[in-house]
């Protein structure tokens, strides 16, 4: 494998903070698109959140959607152009808070799209507020004393939640916090796109990702946080594979 910039990424620096997981996730998505030779067939959706500017980085057609509605927009695109490859790229607030209904119903319809779900347990772009996936005890700017199960309930586990839906084809949770995790994540993302190419239906890959800035940790400590804290609440693994 040659180590070069995938064609699906522009040669441009990103706005992401040092130690942020978005850069790795972008690269994995771009690599999968390159490997499958589908760049000219791809239409991606940008979320509201830190990845909103992904249209500046991805060398393919992109539509920037309103907060949480990417799966609906992706549905519209895919139904009109069934032979194109459509993916959404969404954060935890986008996918599991404001867009929960769209997520669940798009998954349940078995829309033949690929969802890349970046779970960093915090609202990044707005400055570190509680996310639906913020863990119990985790502090945020809106849970200064830590998330309290009595006040905010426990974090939502998206893969577990969606695994009960018969319409879903493939669910896997991965991380980008160790080289081994990155390799596994790349394989999962590629598989999710392959399933779409094969017309197998709805796939979602949940990526546990670092947010050192809003976690108020160094990049190295943020990696430890994913490995030591997040993986125990959100265990990586395949939650469904009906492909």
């Amino acid at each position, binding site marked *: 494998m040659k180590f070069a910039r995938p064609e699906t990424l522009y040669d441009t620096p990103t706005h992401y903070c040092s130690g942020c997981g978005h850069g790795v996730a972008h690269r994995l998505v771009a690599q999968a698109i390159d490997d499958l030779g589908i760049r000219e067939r791809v239409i991606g959706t940008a979320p509201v959140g830190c990845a909103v500017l992904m249209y500046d980085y991805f060398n393919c*057609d992109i539509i920037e959607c*309103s907060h949480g509605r990417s799966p609906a927009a992706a549905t519209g695109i895919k139904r009109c152009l069934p032979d194109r490859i459509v993916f959404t790229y969404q954060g935890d607030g986008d996918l599991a808070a404001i867009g929960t209904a769209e997520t669940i119903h798009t998954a349940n319809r078995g829309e033949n799209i690929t969802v890349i779900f970046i779970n960093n347990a915090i609202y990044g772009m707005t400055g570190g507020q509680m996310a639906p996936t913020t863990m119990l005890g985790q502090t945020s700017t809106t849970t200064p004393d830590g998330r309290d199960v009595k006040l905010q309930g426990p974090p939502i586990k998206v893969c577990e939640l969606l695994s009960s839906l018969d319409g879903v084809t493939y669910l896997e949770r991965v991380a980008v916090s160790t080289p081994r995790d990155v390799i596994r994540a790349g394989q999962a993302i590629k598989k999710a796109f392959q399933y779409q190419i094969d017309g197998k239906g709805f796939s979602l890959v949940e990526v546990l990702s670092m947010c050192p800035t809003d976690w108020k940790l160094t990049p190295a400590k943020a990696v430890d946080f994913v490995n030591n804290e997040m993986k125990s609440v959100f265990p990586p693994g395949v939650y469904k594979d009906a492909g």
Partner: protein
Amino acid sequence: MNSTTEKLFIKGNEVMCEAAVRAGCGFFAGYPITPQNEVPEYMSWRLPEAGGVFLQAESEIAAINMLFGAAATGTRCMTSSSSPGISLKQEGISYIAGAELPCVIANIQRGGPGLGNIRGAQGDYFQATKGGGHGDYRLIVLAPATCQELWQLTMNAFDYADYYRNPVLILGDGILGQMTEPVKPIPYKPIVELPEKDWILNGCKGRKPRVIRTLFLHPSDALTQHNQHLQEKYQKIHQELKLVEQVNTEDAKLVVTAYGSTARIAKGAIQMARRKGMKVGLIRPIALWPFPDQAYLSALGTAKKILVCEMSQGQMIEDVRLACQCKCPVEFFGYGGGWYPTPEKIFDRIQAVYEE
């Protein structure tokens, strides 16, 4: 076959669907709400039959965002709802307007505010014509008064949407949506020369990737430029689209003005007045935005008064007053909440205002 048997006898809601399909609508997403339920029901079988896509969305919000995606592919697309559902769609409509995507949205208005009731009403005029969602944008708003006109304006709506790259709202009401009357199924023919859609997303094969977005973060003045561009487009639409019907305004001392179903009913009242020798005319805006200001100014040559009739507590009256530039008194007759005018009721008010 004679001309009568060629006519269709279908409900307003279904007239809109059939016209949309014949105008090449290829995608519909919607959510059930009375009094427009016949729209998703009809589209659910008719659109697939014509090779299009029908989706019953999980919510009004999802429906409008499905349109956001469908429109981005260049597919002619449509959604419909009734007042509370249209409120839910407003965020998405703002994005569609900001991204300059063509689509057709129908509001078969019912009584409000809140859940209101399911009778026809015209309480959404402000929402329809003044933006509705956030940001500086405009929808082209068409207000058909009869099923025949609904047929034609639905077809035209797709052309306006594509021509101007702007969402078009068909503002109907429960009376129009629920009534059935004979309609001559005039075949679809584009009313403007349609531009090539060189902005659509369909994969970047053989071209540079395209981006459809509404975010203009950097450089700092890009959003101002985008807004300026939108305003220039709206100016152009304002100059080009003058859709209005005038009946007996040449010598009218009193001009009645109304839109949609109310205008249809007002026509009956004006005929009653004319039979009694009263010089009464009607101005019926067919487009509510852009509003046909000029028609009012020119009527002021003879008209001493304007009477605005609406199935609301008075919304269009504000645009009528602006159009008249305070040059004559503007009276109002109407109620909200599902009250229906009749020709007799409007005639009574005409008589009272005329004699004052």
